[in-house]
């Protein structure tokens, strides 16, 4: 069992991410998404060197620490686009409310149909919302918070990688709609990708993290109960 220093974890993460981003920028191939590629390379490296995740995270936490101030920083594009976004207040509230409803029901129903345990269903319900909210919701519903953290990350990566080509294919052209969809489906990781599409998309995406998170926190307990009743489960 190896115990790398936190410095080594930080160095490895930065080197791998810098390389992955350079590759993505050169190729512009969506499957070479920097988060997806970095995560895959680092998991492979940790598995090969038999370094446990907890040891890696002593350095990883240092990087992750800056996530919270980065979310605060989304207030700047939000302010800059406030005038444009404020013309669409009702559509934004309506679309994120629909997104929250669809996000919970379309996660819980298939899992329930496939015979997932109540704890697994509860862990999956808040998969589209930002990690701190998702963990809170999962706890209230009787889920497993670490598993929820993992499904939230997986959902984020999935949406960040496949969301942009999918949205283009189904004819979503408005930057506001693009950003809201990315933020509502894939929280911060989707937003990190939406920021690349311009300031309006980034601002809308950051806003969707907050709106979808708050709405899901309020509605998820009822939506899960409704789904279980529909499926005839206790």
């Amino acid at each position, binding site marked *: 069992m190896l115990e790398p220093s936190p410095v080594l974890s930080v160095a490895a993460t930065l080197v791998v991410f810098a390389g992955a981003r350079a590759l993505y920028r050169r190729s512009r191939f969506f499957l070479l998404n920097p988060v997806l590629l*970095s*995560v895959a390379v680092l998991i492979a490296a940790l598995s090969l060197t038999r370094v446990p995740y907890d040891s890696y995270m002593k350095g990883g936490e240092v990087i992750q620490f800056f996530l919270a101030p*980065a979310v605060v920083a989304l*207030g700047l594009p939000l302010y800059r686009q406030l005038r444009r976004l404020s013309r669409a207040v009702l559509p934004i509230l309506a679309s994120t409310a629909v997104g929250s409803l669809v996000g919970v029901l379309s996660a819980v129903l*298939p899992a329930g149909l496939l015979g997932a345990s109540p704890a697994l269903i509860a862990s999956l319900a808040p998969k589209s919302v930002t990690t701190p909210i998702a963990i809170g919701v999962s706890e209230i519903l009787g889920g497993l918070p670490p598993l929820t953290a993992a499904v939230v990350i997986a959902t984020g990566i999935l949406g960040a990688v496949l969301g942009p080509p*999918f949205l283009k294919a189904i004819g979503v052209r408005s930057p506001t*709609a693009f950003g809201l969809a990315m933020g509502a489906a894939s929280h911060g990781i989707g937003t990190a990708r939406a920021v690349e599409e311009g300031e309006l998309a980034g601002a809308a995406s950051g806003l969707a993290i907050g709106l979808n998170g708050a709405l899901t926190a309020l509605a998820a307990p009822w939506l899960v109960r409704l789904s279980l009743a529909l499926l005839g489960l206790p």
Partner: protein
Amino acid sequence: MIPGLAILFCFLAVGEGAGRLAGIPVPGSVLGMLLLAAALRLGLLPAESVQAAADALLDNLSLLFVPAGVGLMLYFDLPARDWLAVLAALVPSTFLVLAAVGWVQQLLERPGRAEG
């Protein structure tokens, strides 16, 4: 850059405190984002004061999710039955949410006004 970072951390601290006091289920960072936008809108501080720090963080937002993403390695040994449920819950749902939010928003926006 450092004054900007100081401002961002102050708004984060206020957001975390406000969330705890009000007991609302929204993370301090998201409240901090809304408070920062409000403070800029009210002219309490100029946008230039946070510009450099915000750009530095937002240009590298993806990087900050990598350590949590590596945590997926802890779940590779989930039982096959659970894997199936997880995939069935994540994959179609992610596309459904993208389509629902994207379409509803685009349909309700007035073309040409909210950049439809």
